[in-house]
């Protein structure tokens, strides 16, 4: 069993970390996970497994993470507060740690009205910040929320998300600070296309000394087509794609748009490397895990560091 999070090791060692995303299948299909795992093996340090993203029913994040563990990879368990109350969440956290999962990412979750179960009751017993508080309490104090002792505390590297592109910006920084005090060890941001806005957000974060207290991984998503770019800009909340990039995607023929999307992604990473306080990258290639290998190679992020297991 993995003794320690590989993601934590890389960050502790001062190396640039790279994570990617693996969306579980809409079915009881373990092969789909193993296939994605092989596309990402050796290309990234840890793999986020989404939790019924966009409120569409999929294989559970916890089970898919356990499959990744069996394939010898370091998963990041994404947990949303939409579907489970504090009893279920704490129970899953214990199970996750027992199975060797060493990273957790705490999120609110896309609202149930967006998915294929719009009639579901949203739970939201905890919010994402409270989930971090609860997880940190379990890990550091060895108790569940309320103080009852655990027979063994979970070992988890705790992460949170941040959206530098949602409004109002000032409140985004307050919330980032709250996430850090609630227990966030690392932050993965919403995908960056608008670098000016991202830098403005980073400057504000630096003014409060936040990048010194948490490892910020900038999120990137390669665009597959100009249609996808348009869809994301207009329909996905919290995505900000400047006109310049829209025009660039539209300006190349359809059969070369995927390549252009990868080019933009690589250039974005190169530029983000210059931004002070960035500790790594989170590459969300949505249903396009094949792209990750090329992106990390061209962005000079290979080979991924390996350390003696201890």
């Amino acid at each position, binding site marked *: 069993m993995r003794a320690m999070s590989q993601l934590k090791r890389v960050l502790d060692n001062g190396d640039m970390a790279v994570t990617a995303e693996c969306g579980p299948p809409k079915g009881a299909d373990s092969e789909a996970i193993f296939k994605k795992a092989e596309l990402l093996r050796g290309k990234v340090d840890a793999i986020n497994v989404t939790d019924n993203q966009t409120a569409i029913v999929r294989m559970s994040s916890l089970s898919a993470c356990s499959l990744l563990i069996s394939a010898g990879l370091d998963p990041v368990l994404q947990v949303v*507060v939409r579907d489970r109350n504090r009893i279920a969440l704490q129970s899953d956290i214990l199970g996750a740690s027992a199975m060797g999962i060493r990273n957790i990412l705490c999120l*609110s979750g896309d*609202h149930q009205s967006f998915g294929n179960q719009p009639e579901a009751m*949203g739970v*939201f017993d905890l919010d994402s910040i*409270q989930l971090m508080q609860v997880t940190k309490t379990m890990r550091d104090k060895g108790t569940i929320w309320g103080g009852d002792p655990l027979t063994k505390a979970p070992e988890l590297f705790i992460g949170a998300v941040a959206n530098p592109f949602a409004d109002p910006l000032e409140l985004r920084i307050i*919330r980032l600070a709250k996430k850090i005090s*609630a227990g966030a060890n690392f932050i993965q941001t919403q995908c960056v296309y608008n670098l000016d806005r991202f830098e403005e957000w980073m400057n504000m974060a630096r003014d409060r000394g936040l990048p010194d207290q948490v490892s910020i991984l900038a999120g990137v998503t390669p665009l597959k087509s100009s249609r996808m770019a348009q869809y994301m800009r207009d329909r996905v909340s*919290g995505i900000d794609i400047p006109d310049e990039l829209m025009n660039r995607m539209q300006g190349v023929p359809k059969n070369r748009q995927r390549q252009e999307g990868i080019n933009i992604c690589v250039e974005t990473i190169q530029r983000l490397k210059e931004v002070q306080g960035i500790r790594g990258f989170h590459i969300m290639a949505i249903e396009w895990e094949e792209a990750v290998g090329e992106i990390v190679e061209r962005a000079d992020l290979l080979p991924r560091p390996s350390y003696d297991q201890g």
Partner: protein
Amino acid sequence: MITAEQKPIDEIREMIEPYEKILLLGCDSCVAECAAGGEKETAMLASTLRMSAKMDEKKALIQEKTVDRQCVKDFILPLAEIIDRYDAVLSLGCGAGVQAVAEIFSEIPIIPALNTEFIGETRDQGYWVENCIGCGDCMLYYFGGVCPLTRCAKSLLNGPCGGSKDGKCEVDPEVPCAWQLIFERLSRFNALDRLEKIYPPKDWSEKQGLGPRKIIREDQQL
């Protein structure tokens, strides 16, 4: 106030079908304010049901009465004088009114004519909005007078989520993001420091843990 809307007429007709003599019982408080179950709406519904009984050539006695508060025992008790004349009561009260009448007159069927909606305010003519879930531990001070439990689609106490854009909620672009409103109001009062605090998980044991809630105040009892 408690808001409500009238059920579809076909559903109401189906529920009252077995009965011949029906008392329509309106309530002149909250549901009158939201134009669902006051004296006027009760008269209108009675007239609709009478007409439809006539068209169906169904024998029916449909009468109406409106009390000041259907959820208060003192206002319900006088119904004892007339209630025996009927086979059923069709209540235009909120869920509390329906159940209060049922509790006192246990021998007669009580049928709801309304769908009870929420605790809210009359924002404008014909426009009601939800703004309180009755959590039992009011936190409006911390949030500048805007309740995130009610008005944020995810009930976040440490919001906002990443979905607010131009001050609107991702769930419905017509709906203002509660956290945007909280931010604006606290900024105005120079109280943004209240948002730096982490609000811990809410204690729901009072609201949900012990069955239906009650308030007992000896100082108010005779």
